[in-house]
């Protein structure tokens, strides 16, 4: 009886230790099945085209909007009040680069 229990305990423990050291499946586990690193260029084009006509600069420049004017607030740029901006639009070129490739 005693020996049997010893064996069981030893088996469980060594089994766990072995399993704990085993990390072969880890890369598969950490790959998001809901995303991809390969897309057709047409899908990249969708964003590039939309970016050009939608909200690239300022919401008033939307080509695709049907409205004529907006009455919520005074538009600063109408009165030459321009704030700081950034070069973030350049990021869109990354998509374009991937698209060309």
């Amino acid at each position, binding site marked *: 009886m005693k020996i049997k229990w010893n064996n069981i305990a030893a088996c469980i423990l060594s089994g766990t230790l072995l399993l704990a050291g085993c*990390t072969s499946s880890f890369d598969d586990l950490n790959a998001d099945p809901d995303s991809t690193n390969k897309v057709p260029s047409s*899908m990249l084009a969708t*964003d590039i085209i939309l970016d050009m006509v939608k909200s690239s600069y300022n919401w008033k420049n939307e080509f695709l909007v049907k409205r004529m004017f907006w009455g919520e607030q005074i538009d600063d740029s109408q009165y030459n009040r321009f704030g700081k901006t950034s070069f973030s639009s350049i990021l869109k070129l990354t998509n374009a680069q991937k698209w060309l490739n």
Partner: protein
Amino acid sequence: MNDRTKMQKLFCMVVCFFCIGIMNAFAQEQRVTVELKNATLKQVFKSIEGQTTYRFSYRNTMIDNKADITISKHQAVISAVLDEALKGRELTYSIVSSKSIVISDKVKQSGSSKNKRISGTVKSPDGEPIIGANVKVEGSSIGCITDINGYFTLEVPENAKLSVSYIGYQTQNLSITNKSLLNITLKEDTEVLEEVVVTALGIKREEKALGYAVQKVGGDKFTTAKGVDIASSLTGKIAGLNIQNSTEFNENAKIILRGESPIIIIDGIPYDNFGLDDIAPDDIESIDVLKGATASALYGSRGSAGAIMITTKKGTDAEGLNVSINSNTMFFSGYLAFPETQSSYSRGQSGKSGGDYIWGDKLDIGRTAILYNPNTYQWEEQELVSKGRNNYKNFLQFSFVTNNNVSVSQKGKYGSFRASMTQIYNRGQYPNQDLNKVNFTVGGEMSWKKFKLEASATYNKHKASNNNGSGYSGSYIYDLVIWGSSEYDIRDFKNYWIEGKEDIQQNWYDNAWYDNPWFKSHEIVDAYDTDLMNASMTGSYEITPWLKAMIRGGLDVSTQRNEQRNAMGANYAWNKGGFYGLSRTTEFSLNTDAMLLANKTWGKFTVDGLLGGNIYYYKYDKMKSTTTGGLSTPGYYSLKASIDPIDSSSALKQKRVNSLYGKLSLSWDSTYFLDVTGRNDWSSTLRSDERSYFYPSVSGSVVLSEIFNLPSWWDFLKVRRSWTVTKADADIYANNNVYSVSTNVWSGMTSASYPSTLIGGRVLPKKAEVWEVGGAANFFKNRLYVDFAYYRKAESDFIIKGGVSPMTGYSAIQTNFKETRLRSGFEITLGGTPIKTKDFSWDILTNWAHDKYTYQTIDPEYSTKKPWVAKGETWDWFAIYDWERDPQGNIVHNGAGLPIRQDFKTKVGKLTPDLVWGITNTFKYKNITLSCTIDGRVGGISFSRTHQMLMNSGAGKDTDTKWRYDEVVNGKLTYIGNGVKVVSGSVTYDPDGNVISDDRVFAPNDIVVSYEAYTSKYHDSASNPSAQNVLDETFFKLRDLSITYDLPKSWCNSLKLKSASVGVTGQNLFLWAKDYKYADPDKGGDKYGYENLNSPSQRYIGFNIKANF
């Protein structure tokens, strides 16, 4: 306490029995006639019992079944019969009373002929009689207990040694020589009652052996005033634990331990999906809070913020069956904080009705306006009267919370079993807010020889009818208080559909921003239905007396169904054309541990070791589908009702961590203790070459009171110190460099874009180094105790997305932050029993904690570039665009008389409190117990949107001023902003806001402006915090109060109960706040420091009934 009284009762009964046994009763002997041949002893007894009132008591093992007795006695005294019957047997008898005869072994009774009677009194050092002290003759079963005067009387053999004992006092041994009257004074026990706490992996240890701070709360603290969530009952009871209780429906309290979120561990297992609110208060045996990363070092990265260890009940202490019922119901009884509005002015702007603000015309002076009529659905000219002055209160409903529990437990020789069921119902303060919770728990333990098994399983069901309606935009306060006014009576809008346009158009005066609140509560719904299960099993086997093997497995599964829908015409919801969305989320976590535990003692030296491994697996699986483009059929809430193609998405996240850990504890003479632990993790969320990380800890404790001779009033003193380095892995998929794909972005087309963050570089796990020192001391025979802890935690290698110039083609790069952040603080627990007499006792527990967060090193590349981001400065800062001020701090006004806002940010304070404190008092007088907790926080700021927007919109009570009256009624502008104006000169700043040149000359502001214009500018919009609405969160609360009356034993007996009590309970009873007037600072701001229109804070008072069968 409970178990102690039970043990006492048991002991009393046993002792009483023995007392009776040795008392000689000189009853008149009755005569019997016995004619038996070859009879057994039992037959003799039966025959006597049949003729007299006597009953025999004996142990079955003493009486043999030999049929060898032949007696023939006629009308003889019983003693003659028994003398004859017991002849040749090693048995003797004593006639105890007229009812009972005790048969006992002759050996033990030898010398009983030389008994003598002694008596005496037992007293405490201060002369109070001790009731129920045990007086026992050593080496025998003779004994009794003292009566109400401390008096006892006992028949003892000559030269016997007497032992007198009572809980809390030292046992006294004395020999009786020729004294027959004894006066015994017991000394109080100065030995510290060894408190046993639950530490990492569920291992129970003596508190004094630990080198880190652990604080325990008994389960009885949670079973009287029972709300929805036990977090409220835990508030103020642990030093260093800051609990921010929510005022919202179905929103859990925020639990912060030393500034971070600790893990919740139930019976040693860290479940991912179980929070404090998923555990029924009646199932809790105790809660042990492991305060630092060292304490929870054996849990690896998940324990890096400390742990809340919950031990559940597995059975009762006393053997046998126990059924208990505990019911608590509390009702709404007033508000502690309520957003108050004016009822003098209508909706509108510039003193005229019409428009979205509440800066309209004066009410109740006979003026008229075009108003919406909820009965005709027309806009009609009506008189402006303040018929809706109590709109918000009229909309709120009477809320209550009821929490009922029934538990059945049974304990036997080989183990115990317990089943418990809890039902909680909460009716929220807004219509259509019902929360139903059912918790069913079974658990038990068994032991057989060297094998022990413990198992438990819990099922939880949570159903919340509508979580919608809190926060800033779209909340009830937003619609009804901030942007609502009193010329409309909200009760007229109870029929929230326009007749004939049911399910299409709501009956309401606005069609852009705000919704009819009755419509909102029933037609804009965010409902949750959650099933939560866990199960665990722990088996251990003693291989040798010093070596034990243990396996433990635990898993939990949560399945949540979330239904979101809004009717057509909803202004602030998912889709104005109607919406239906359904999501299902399943979360699963699994923890398996296997360990070998060893414990060996050589003289004064004890070694305690542990070696084990853990496998942790987590899975998150979500699917969500929603309608798009509105609903095809009014009132048809289904995915099939979608006008455009259904939007569907899914997410799957998985993670596994394998670990090996070990612990070595050494102790010498119960005085010196040293613990060393190590844990190595392999995490799936890190790149294969950085996957493995090690996590060491060292802690030690020295009991100084064992080494030095302390004054007699100083009972105990220990010091402790600990150190650890923790590591934390990255988020799931954080290192995946993938395209983000969106479907149906334009005319059914799918798009993809490359991440703007550069991912894939070398990223190390986040690191933290923690050390802690502390000490504990007890004084005045443990009537006063104190515990102190100071900790320091330096966090580094944060995994961040560091901003880079977009010219690189990326906006950020995933990397390790070189900034090091320091957390430091101290905790003090001070408590004791100032008064303890026979009938009255007073226990007090106070907790005090202070935290400080500072930068230790700054990352030259990625740290925020602000003047106040520097070494030694606090990193929990809050910065706003402050007003332009003169050197004295007065607000500078422009030429139009309005305050000028600076165009750079200024740090105005820090978010975390300077002090978190709590005081719990328990008073006991005979059967009555009064317990109350007062707790609070000092310091810490937040931007109150409630305060700012009440002023900005014109709805707030404080906008009802004489300037407003002059402006609206008399058409006169009279308001002058408090501050200064610039007469000449100007100021220039660098981008950080440092003054470069300043030659301004100031004069007091005297420019008359419109009160409305000034107020809406001074209390700017919701996302633009103004300095005067950044409030100090300092407050204190009477958190809970309960008065319990334990029914007298005699009543319980007549009702066939073991014990019972009734009580009055209350929660959230009183609030004092320094700055906050219209919202509860207990919930306070969110993690960004924004208070988002907290719902009214409610007081709850109710009753509690407990019974044990």
